[in-house]
């Protein structure tokens, strides 16, 4: 029987996700804090930028934080790598289906007393299943 007839072995993507988690734990097992705004009240004051919605901090572990080359204007950049198996249960609590889109709406990554804006969210997939979310944040 050829490889095509056998098809892909089921569960391949689970192995990749477990491997990603193991990698994150072995590479520092750091905790990262992401800040996101609560739903806006939607009234005129919030539409006019007069009333900021309250923000919540999410502490997520395991995470990997890498320092990237500074941006062209000299601003500091970091990459935060998070596992899909860590984010999915959190996203479920907030009834979120598209995790990448949700992360793009976050206010940023909290580093000490600084909030670094999330500039880019990349998703690494194996066999169509998300394994890692890579957030690029800038000052």
């Amino acid at each position, binding site marked *: 029987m050829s490889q095509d007839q056998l098809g892909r072995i089921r569960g391949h993507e689970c192995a990749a996700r477990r491997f990603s988690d193991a990698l994150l734990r072995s590479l520092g097992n750091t905790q990262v804090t992401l800040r996101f*705004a*609560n*739903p*806006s*009240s*939607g009234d*005129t*004051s*919030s*539409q*006019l*930028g*007069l*009333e900021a*919605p309250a923000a919540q901090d999410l502490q997520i572990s395991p995470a990997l934080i890498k320092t990237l080359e500074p941006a062209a204007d000299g601003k500091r950049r970091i990459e935060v790598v998070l596992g899909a198996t860590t984010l999915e249960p959190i996203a479920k609590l907030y009834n979120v289906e598209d995790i990448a*889109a949700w992360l*793009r*709406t*976050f*206010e940023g990554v909290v580093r000490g007393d600084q909030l670094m*804006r*999330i*500039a*880019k*969210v990349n998703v690494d997939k194996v066999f169509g299943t998300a394994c890692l979310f890579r957030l690029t944040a800038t000052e």
Partner: protein
Amino acid sequence: MQATKDSFYVALRDRLVAVDPNRTVTLDGATRPAIAVVENEPPNDAPPLCDTFYLQWGNAKLAAPSGNGLMAMECSIAYCTKGTAQNASLDRGRDLASLDNDLLAICAPPQTAKYDYSSGSPVALGSTIFWTAPVLNAAKSGPRYVGREVTITVFFYPEVNQS
């Protein structure tokens, strides 16, 4: 200047509710009329939403060099659509026309009363702002979206003691 920006937005928003009450959008977890001012929204990397009017303020200058105090401020309104899934997005041109119609409708009449919203509730300033007819620039087509930018010049007298 801020009172002008706020009054223009609120006038267009309220007119949109009257013209097309079903044109709503969920922004930051709140469902509201599908019009927003870019500078009033949280800064993030999320792309603009389809079927939503995004106002962006540009240059402001004296309307005439001789100067009676009348100011002119540019406003661009951008929007795009990807059509509907039921029609395999083949209706995105029609959807854009529908957005164009809504925009033209909410821009007329080209004037509104000016209010100060800084305290949270509107305080009449006893003057009006007015604007030019919208200029619909050429539609821009992407692989999945079609959109347009409209430019309007808003005229106003700056208020004393107003930012």
